[in-house]
């Protein structure tokens, strides 16, 4: 009986496994293979050993891109977590009107990415509404997308707008699972609001916080469309995150070996963070 059930398990899982092996695992292994070759898509790959990897250390485009990626990912996470935490927490204190706020705040998440990118691109224009608004309060226009100092921030601001909406809802769900009595008890003990948050809310919400941090990191590393549409990696590579560099190296420079090497680095980074996520989630379940 048990033995036959084991076989059933494999039968049920086999279609998905085959699918993932074919379209996910195999390409990853193939990317590893190409990363050891010089390959231009037209002529057969030539084996070059680990020279593509050695070259990374002196590849300034790549090193710059790593930094740009890290900067983007870091700053897309930091204020968003705090803000969505607060918004989610406030929403959880409401009763009747919660549904309406929730829908309105979630709206940015349902726009197609390309629409979002196009709208912000025009809003960031020299003569766009953001600069108009700044001008009316007496601030000079800011060259959002044409200056290396501002362009990374323009993309980060936009990601705040886009991501806060999504993570607020996740935090809200987390808050709703918290036991009410803890807070009542704390209130009876005369604990202040900040104390309650620090000693009760944050520890209880830790799993959700960790989850959002990891989700935001992985999503930040996987970003592509916003950069592609708004700046195409410019000006002067200021927003050339890894995915953009991979795309250009592969399809504009026709250097599949180098592009695959970049890909493996990106994949390695995401997997490492993913493993942390798995470890944290399973750790939470044990607790």
């Amino acid at each position, binding site marked *: 009986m048990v033995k036959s059930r084991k076989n*059933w398990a494999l039968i049920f899982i086999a279609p998905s496994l085959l699918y993932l092996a074919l379209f996910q695992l195999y390409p990853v292994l193939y990317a590893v293979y190409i990363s050891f070759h010089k390959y231009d898509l037209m002529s057969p790959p030539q084996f070059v050993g680990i020279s593509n990897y050695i070259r990374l250390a002196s590849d300034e485009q790549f090193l710059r891109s790593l930094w740009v990626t890290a900067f983007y990912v870091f700053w897309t996470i930091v204020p968003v977590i705090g803000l969505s935490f607060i918004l989610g927490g406030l929403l959880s204190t409401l009763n009747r009107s919660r549904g309406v706020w929730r829908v309105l705040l*979630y*709206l940015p998440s349902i726009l197609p990415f390309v629409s979002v990118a196009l709208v912000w691109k*025009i809003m960031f224009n020299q003569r766009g509404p953001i600069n108009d608004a700044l001008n009316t309060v007496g601030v000079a226009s800011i060259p959002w997308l044409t200056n290396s100092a501002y362009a990374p921030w323009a993309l980060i601001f936009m990601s705040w707008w886009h991501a806060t909406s999504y993570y607020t809802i996740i935090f809200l769900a987390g808050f709703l699972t918290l036991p009410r009595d803890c807070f009542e008890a704390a209130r009876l003990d005369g604990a202040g609001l900040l104390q309650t948050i620090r000693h009760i809310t944050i520890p209880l919400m830790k799993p959700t916080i960790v989850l*959002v941090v990891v989700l935001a990191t992985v999503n930040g590393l996987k970003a592509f469309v916003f950069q592609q549409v708004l700046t195409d990696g410019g000006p002067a590579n200021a927003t050339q995150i890894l995915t953009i560099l991979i795309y250009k190296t592969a399809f504009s420079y026709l250097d599949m070996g180098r592009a695959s090497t970049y890909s493996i680095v990106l994949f390695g980074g995401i997997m490492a963070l993913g493993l942390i996520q798995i470890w944290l989630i399973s750790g939470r379940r044990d607790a």
Partner: protein
Amino acid sequence: MRNARTERIAVFAFLAIFTAIALFPIVWMLGASFKTDKELLDGSLWSFGSAGISNYVKAFSARPFLRYLLNSLLAAGVSVVITVVLGVLAGYGFAKLRNQYTEIIWIVVLASIMIPIESIVIPLFLQVHAFGWHDTYAGIILPTALNAAGIFILRQAIQSIPNELLEAGRIDGASEFRILRLIVVPLLAPSIVVVSVLTFSLSWNSYLWPLIITSTDSLRTLPLGMAAFQMTLNTKYSEIMAVSTFGTIPMAILFVSLQRYFIDSAIGSGIKG
């Protein structure tokens, strides 16, 4: 009491500010799609445009956006079906028929959730072209159709179904297929909708893969059509906004009708773990 009221007002004010920020670009996009380019750039934020629907008319005559829409719907629909069917099967296998093999395979599923399409797009492209799927619907849709996160969510949902229910079926001599169909699936309905919504939006936003695998214009999906339209010489900003608004409509309809599940899907992609 007064304290509680001021508190409440403060909360509403805070939420109102952020809601306004969340909505501003959307409202602005809608407004801009009815303006002329001159009106759009002259700094008048709240005036109504004089362009009427001319931007929409121009965009639709420049490119076959309805065709793009149908392609996107097809891709999203097929992805949903594949993810739900394979996901329910695999989810049941992982949740209720665990053994040492399934534990190892589970790692593969988790890894698949993490793989960014950007890092495998080149090998996947070569492989799909070896299948002869370059520039076909199969090539656009199938390689990215199975959403591994869907398997994850369905497994979590199935895990919460009490074993006693399944044992009852087994004692009656039902096969595992029957148990899945008659006992598990009916209980899964909400999670299936959640997975569908999540997969649908993922597919709806898919950009890089269809860009690389299609050459024929009539196979393009909506995001590609929108991006190509904005890259065409002498396209006007206001026309771009019309197209962006159009691209939002199907999602908005889906969102309004399935609102609860959308929000559960945002939550489901994480919290249910």
